[in-house]
């Protein structure tokens, strides 16, 4: 695909692009230059399988994705309409066989995404030249494959991918050290190697070997050296960025370290897209809907547009549709701020009728949603703006697993429960919170991780297999401290056998408050 040549946009599509871009700019959207490329269904599926980057490194899971996408497409179960890459310039792919109406809609939608990528704070630290960077990653890994063999490299990538979600998504925004020393290479460290020479007693020359016996000195030096290593491998506090810890301390070969760093870098690049799924899709849908219904549609497009739009917004009882939730919440907020339904007066108003008819004509809606798209992610978006009225309107409910009957059932339609559940699912991208506590556990160079238990246990078989992969990376036994059956448990894997030890003490469930 690296050699793929894309034709320039056909004239009718180029015309539409000019129109759509004009409308989008007219509404105040501010986006990267956006390049549209028309591709066949097969190519689109392939590009989508690679996460949007045709030059990505080789790996079987992309083949698996492709298999699923193309099977789904062939059997008419699913179809990708659009694919857009967070990059400057922003690349977007259009499916060749789509009708003009679809292409219009997709372009309007893409300008929404492009604006979001450029302006949303959570994307601000992502690499905007990722197209080039990923191609570079691809080449590096391909080179390792040529040199060390596909099996070996792939096996190692599999192990790395097992821990790819163990990153610290907030770290790009936190300064943990002083700026001055942060990125600068510390030359002095190399010039003056750390001093491990032990203290000596003052003694006359002829007495020296008795007062400061050489073998004792040697042992002392050894001890100091080990203590220094120990310091280095024992972080002050828990380290969320497990991948970084592995990069710095695991005994890896140079190529392995490089592969691990590539996978970590890509994980950080993709993380904000996971953090802003609802907002991102909601924002893009809001704009395609606004642009299409106000300006973009020709009479002949209407039926097809409605068909497509309502298909995208379809709701399900088992899976929230981020497009639907996002667009509706943006509209709800716009309406509230247009009518001035916020602030002290509104919140404290007890008169339901007055509240229902509340309209100060504030007209701040548009301004508000632009502000939101700049500073929020899904978690804070839902936390700040989900309201009781909205939940009612959208018929949201909270469901849970019924252990007796072994199915999922609707548990509640109460607002606080819905909101708590939604926030729960979004916190840490719905994944357990795992951090490194120590890299030299029991002074035996073993890796010790901790799971911040908040009432939900780890999936045990998955945890065991993940530890097997972790052990491959770390080279020494690994341990995870977690809670099973309300008891503090340490899961261990020593390279051949899994074991667990449980303490007798019951663990009080940490109550998370919202």
């Amino acid at each position, binding site marked *: 695909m690296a050699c793929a040549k894309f034709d320039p946009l056909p004239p009718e599509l180029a015309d539409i692009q000019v129109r759509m871009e004009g409308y989008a700019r007219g509404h105040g959207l501010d986006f990267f230059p956006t390049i549209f490329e028309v591709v066949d269904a097969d190519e689109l599926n392939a590009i989508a399988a690679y996460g949007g980057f045709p030059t990505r490194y080789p790996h079987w899971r992309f083949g698996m994705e492709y298999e699923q996408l193309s099977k789904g497409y062939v059997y008419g179960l699913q179809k990708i309409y659009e694919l857009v890459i967070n990059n400057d310039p922003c690349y977007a792919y259009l499916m060749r066989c789509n009708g003009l109406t679809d292409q219009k809609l997709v372009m309007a939608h893409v300008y929404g995404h492009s604006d979001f990528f450029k302006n949303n704070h959570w994307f601000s630290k992502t690499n905007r030249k990722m197209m080039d960077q990923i191609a570079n990653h691809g080449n590096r890994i391909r080179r390792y494959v040529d040199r060390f063999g596909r099996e070996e490299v792939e096996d190692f990538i599999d192990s790395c991918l097992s821990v790819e979600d163990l990153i610290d998504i907030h770290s790009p925004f936190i300064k943990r050290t002083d700026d001055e020393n942060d990125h600068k290479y510390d030359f002095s460290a190399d010039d003056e190697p750390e001093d491990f020479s032990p203290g000596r007693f003052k003694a006359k020359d002829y007495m020296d070997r008795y007062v400061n016996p050489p073998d004792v000195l040697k042992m002392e030096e050894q001890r100091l050296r080990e203590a220094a290593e120990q310091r280095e491998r024992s972080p002050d506090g828990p380290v969320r960025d497990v991948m970084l810890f592995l990069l710095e301390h695991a005994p890896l070969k140079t190529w392995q370290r490089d592969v691990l760093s590539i996978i970590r870098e890509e994980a950080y690049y993709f993380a904000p897209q996971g953090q802003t799924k609802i907002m991102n899709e909601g924002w893009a849908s809001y704009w395609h809907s606004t642009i299409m219904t106000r300006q973009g549609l020709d009479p002949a497009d209407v*039926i097809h547009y409605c068909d497509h739009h309502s298909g995208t917004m379809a709701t399900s009882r088992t899976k929230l549709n981020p497009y639907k939730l996002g667009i509706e919440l943006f509209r709800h907020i716009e309406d509230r701020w247009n009518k001035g339904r916020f602030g002290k007066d509104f919140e404290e108003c007890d008169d339901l009728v007055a509240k229902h008819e509340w309209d100060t004509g504030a007209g701040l809606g548009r301004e508000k949603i632009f502000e939101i798209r700049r500073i929020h992610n899904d978690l804070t978006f839902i936390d700040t703006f989900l309201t009781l009225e909205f939940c009612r309107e959208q018929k949201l409910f909270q469901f849970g697993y019924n252990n007796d009957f072994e199915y999922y059932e609707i548990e509640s339609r109460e607002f606080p429960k819905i909101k708590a559940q939604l926030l729960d699912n979004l916190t840490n991208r719905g994944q357990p919170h795992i951090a490194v506590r120590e890299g030299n556990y029991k002074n035996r160079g073993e890796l010790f991780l901790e799971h911040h238990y908040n009432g939900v246990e780890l999936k045990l078989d998955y945890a065991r297999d993940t530890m097997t992969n972790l052990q491959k990376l770390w080279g020494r036994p690994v341990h995870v401290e977690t809670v099973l059956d309300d008891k503090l448990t340490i899961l261990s894997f020593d390279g051949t056998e899994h074991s667990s030890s449980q303490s007798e003490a019951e663990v009080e469930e940490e109550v998370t408050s919202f």
Partner: protein
Amino acid sequence: MAMKIEADRSRFKKIVRGKIRENLRKYITHEEMIGRKGKDLVSIPVPKLDLPHFRFGNNGAGGVGQGDGEIGDPIAGGDDDGNGPGQAGSDPGAHILEVDITLAELAEILGDTLELPRIEPKGKARIVQEKSRYSSIRSTGPESLRHFKRTYKKALRRQISSGTYDPARPRIIPFREDRQYRSWTTVNVPEANAAIIYMMDVSGSMTDEQKEVVRTESFWIDTWLKSQYDGVECRYIIHDAAAKEVDEHTFYHTRESGGTRISSAYRVAASLIEKELRPEEWNIYFFQFSDGDNWGEDSEDSISLLRDKLLPAANLFCYGQVESPYGSGEYISSLETAFGDEHENLILSEIEDKDAIYDSIKKFLGKGI
């Protein structure tokens, strides 16, 4: 443009095959894991194709959904097969991938694993038959084939764009040009040129468990032979003291009682190949399953029938003897004494239990004839 993705795809497929290879024994003996879906699709759950991560277990699973329903209404079944509810904002998280494998692919895997040789068919002219498939759309055709939805949509679109659509009175009148009709294409389907004749002993000594063994083994034999021939004709014969030809369902579900006369089944088979499945036109495979219990003097009759009528006509004659708590199990040794290594196309196999099916299939089909 050579797509890189093809390399990754074939890599993935190889891994999938590897998984199946590892578990093949299990599949063969637990065929309930395999379902024929539609015409020739079978879906095999291949666990653990996604890489392990630290994940939450089931005890806290829950989420938010949208729609109608009372509290306590079930919304989805709960086994951990990835059909459970997903979470907003997370990636689509299917935990176990259902890999659809066509029977052809499955047969290939079976062939690879058992190292089965390709079958050389006896050279026969193949008869090709034309069939119609309704799979396309055109703008003319008989009213009985009109595609209502497409016609309606086209008319609606025309009315809206020409401004004759009135939302207050949404009446859609299709013109001649709006009408869309289903249409067919003709495909060539080759006629069957291989026949499998199954014979089973259903006398009182054959238990349900033994029929299960027969059924599982037949499924895999079917799969393999169907991958080797364009069409396969299957015939079923059951016998106790007397024999008759039956349909597939009856074959697997009948339980009769009474004595056993194997020669009766051979007679029915012999008349079948005389009247319908002439050996000059068909590649014929016989599979006989029994617990090996036969009436004393009948074995001689059976052996001579087998020698004179069946073996000369057959590509392959396989006799599988399942172990039974009741039967004497003598028949297989009678056959061995009578034939020895005389006939290359006669294969005998003893199937002790479900786990032995694997080896039995290998024995039956390992010669490639």
